[in-house]
């Protein structure tokens, strides 16, 4: 998942270093196909069925500048009374530039008490993250955050 602007050179160095790794299969990273904004839109449509997605109610907490794209903490919370007649049914998180637009779907119900989930995600590059909540009344709400993924200084291509 790690994307580097200097893939060729680093791959060569990675291979050179890899010979000494004891008992491990040398794995090098190559640039995978990126999810495109069209794929992102299509992934969102497959959840919403084309219904209108309003901005608001959803809060997406993710560091704007991450220390390492391999493990990025993320919390999505939705302003909701979480009552049987008015609650969040599911939360869906998408990205713009990973090889695949989906990150995770989280299904919850009124017994949750609080509409909030946290996880850790991989971000292959600086990109847009979108969180969409489906409410019990069938409406969709969203939040979007731009995340900058910096290049870590001391990386290993071969593990």
């Amino acid at each position, binding site marked *: 998942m790690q994307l580097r602007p200097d893939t060729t050179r680093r791959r060569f160095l990675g291979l050179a270093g890899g010979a000494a790794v004891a008992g491990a299969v040398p794995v090098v990273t190559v640039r995978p196909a990126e999810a495109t904004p069209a794929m992102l839109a299509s992934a969102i449509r497959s959840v919403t069925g084309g219904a209108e997605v309003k901005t608001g109610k959803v809060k997406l907490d993710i560091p704007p500048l991450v220390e390492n794209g391999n493990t990025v903490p993320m919390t999505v919370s939705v302003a909701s009374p979480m009552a049987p007649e008015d609650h969040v049914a599911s939360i869906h998180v998408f990205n713009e530039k990973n090889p695949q637009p989906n990150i995770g779907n989280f299904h919850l119900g009124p017994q949750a008490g609080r509409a909030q989930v946290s996880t850790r995600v991989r971000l292959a590059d600086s990109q847009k993250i979108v969180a969409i909540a489906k409410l019990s009344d069938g409406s969709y709400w969203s939040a979007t955050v731009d995340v900058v993924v910096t290049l*870590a200084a001391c990386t290993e291509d071969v593990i």
Partner: protein
Amino acid sequence: MRLAGAIAAALLAAGAVGATEIPQAERRSGYSFMKPDTRAMQDEDTANPGMLWVLDGETLWKRKSGAAEKACADCHGDISTSMKGIAARYPAFDNATGRPVDLEQRINSCRANHQQATPLPFESRELLALTAFVARQSQGSPIETGADPQLAPFIAKGRELYLQRQGQLNLGCANCHDDNWDKRLAGSAITQGHPTGYPLYRLEWQSLGSLQRRLRACITGIRAQAYDYGAPELVELELYLMSRARGMPMEAPAVRP
């Protein structure tokens, strides 16, 4: 090429300054350079993925192994007392070989001598797990490595290696970690290189890893040929770094970017 450029810039800056040791009062764990989100991962056991290896280590500690059909626990008993502070004194002098050994090597020699079991490969899940479980018992204990006078010549060798420029970038460890630790390299903070939390969970690795793995990666980073796992040079470097961090509290299993 961006990265090579950044290191080259650091090299120029380093050229102007001689390697000077960091005064005791200014010594800082890598933890203090991390952003709050990454600190939070280390602060709580159930958020720290390194604890998964500690759990595995607990299972292995109690499991009989080798021809002797003995478990670690059969000799060492309750780990919370028998191994408290032990990792904070490694690498330690090994009388049998007349050399320093690190914690991983000690575990493997214990396996060979007392369990009659095969050594676990460096960076294997099992060896990392056992090391993590042992090191965890020293969490909060001050590092005491290097107190044994027999270690003095090996610490000196490790220090020599720490200062020695090498690789295509012609950099020594000290050029970054003594002289430029308050600066940044690309997106990352340059730390002081105190190995207070090994084995640790590195976000970059998405796994637990040993200090030897980290040193090998750093050596590859300056475009030098990394020593093989278990090489005397790596153990001497580990020894010097741990003795340089004396007095700092152990954090294993730490989390680092």
